[in-house]
Structures are given as C-alpha cells and as structure tokens.
C-alpha cells in the first residue's frame, strides 16, 4: 500500500470544503450548483478510497456500486437543477439566488 488512506481523505475533505464555500458564497444559482457538484465528487473519492483500501481485500464491490449511485443522483440533480434555473431565468430575468424570493412572505 503505497499511498496512505489518510492522503485521499485529506484531499477529499479539502475538495468538500472548497465546494461548501462555493455553494455558500456564490450569488449565482449556477455557481451554487457547481459547488454542490464538487462536494459530490469529494464523497465519491472517499467511497472509492475506502473501497480500495478496506473492502477490496474481501472481493466485494459495494464501494464502487455506491459511487455509481452517487454519480447517477448527481446527474439527475444537475439536470433538474439546471432546468429549474432556466425556468426561473425565463420568468424573472435573473438567476441571482437573492432575487429568487418568490416563496418568502
């Protein structure tokens, strides 16, 4: 085992925190969505690192299947999220998350 597991976990944690900062600080809805995609990627790195270094010895593949499901959900989330952004832009001429307050009292 040449690369320690903690290296992967540190990189994934850094990627998650960068994505978190992007999702929290962007004004633009597309920017928020990009931050969420980064966070989902970091989760996948974690899943595969644990699969390779803990689970692979037993020959099962749950880690890889988990990662595939996460990618599927991320694709569905991106499709629906971007459709929502297009729809909001069409009705309000803005994708600024602070302008989208239709449901506030």
């Amino acid at each position, binding site marked *: 085992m040449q690369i320690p597991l903690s290296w992967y976990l540190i990189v994934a944690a850094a990627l998650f925190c960068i994505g978190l900062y992007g999702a929290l600080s962007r004004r633009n809805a597309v920017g928020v969505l990009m931050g969420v995609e980064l966070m989902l990627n970091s989760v996948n790195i974690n899943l*595969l690192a644990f*699969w390779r270094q803990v689970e692979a010895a037993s020959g099962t593949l749950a880690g890889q299947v988990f990662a595939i499901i996460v990618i599927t959900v991320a694709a569905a989330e991106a499709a629906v999220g971007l459709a929502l952004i297009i729809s909001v832009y069409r009705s309000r001429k*803005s994708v600024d998350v602070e302008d989208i307050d239709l449901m506030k009292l």
Partner: protein
Amino acid sequence: MSLLQIVFIVLSAITLIGALGVVTNRNLFRCALFLVLSFVGVAGLYVLLEAEFLAVVQILVYVGAISILIIFAIMLSQRLMSPEFRASNEQWIWALVAAVALFAILAFILLRVSWPTISAPAPENAISALGQALVSPNQYLLVFEVASVLLVVALIGAVIIARER
C-alpha cells in the same frame, strides 16, 4: 517518496486548483472550465485507486455531460456572461470561515485516527464482476432498477420544468 505518491500529489493538485478556480473566478464561464479540470483530476485519482470503470464513467458523465449542461445553462441565460455581475454575496466571509473551520476539524480528526487498512491487490477482472453484481438479483439489481427509474423521472421532470409554456 515513490512514483505513485508523486503522481497522487500532482493529481490532487490539479483537482484542488481546479476547485479553487471554480469558487474564486469571477467569470462564470471560466468557472465551468475549471470545473472540467477538477473533474479530470478526480478521474485520475480513480485510476490510482484502481477503479477504472468509475474513472471512465467520471469522464463520460461529468466531463462529457454535466459540464456541457452547465455551460449550456450559462450561455442560455445571457446576463450571466456580462462582466459586471457580482460573484459572491455578503455572507462570503462567513462561508470562508465555516469552510476553513470544517476543513481544520476534518483534517485534525483524519490525521489522528489510525485507519484499519488492509493491504491487498485489487480484485482481478473487477469490471466484469461489477457488471454482474449490478444485474444479479441477490446483489444490486434493485438498486440498479431504482437508479434507472430515477433517471427517467429526472429526464421527464427536466423537460417539463424547462419547457416554454
């Protein structure tokens, strides 16, 4: 330091520099291009983890589909492309504090725990085993079917939401 570790550091640097470009760049289109860079770095990390199928899926789905979708959304809403839009909101300093604090806590914990890793070679013909696991009834067939239903629902939902009425 072995060659693999150097490759790991280079790939991690590509991933993290791309991610930093995504969250700091003011031009949203350049953000999307940095996102592609970050996804390619993650695919390289998957290759290092000997999950070749996932690496190819990462390139196909993220680089090939999701980034293109994001670039389409950026170009369809033209005001995004104007240079004077403000990139971050008023709470960005608190977001930065929260992200750095979370990373500090995570790194502190991750470096203290001794992980019970098992040194074993990667399973041979993992790709065909994965394909069989996904469609065999006593393994992940149900998950596979639920994922396909989810994709159909997302497809129909996206078409209905984005449709001009």
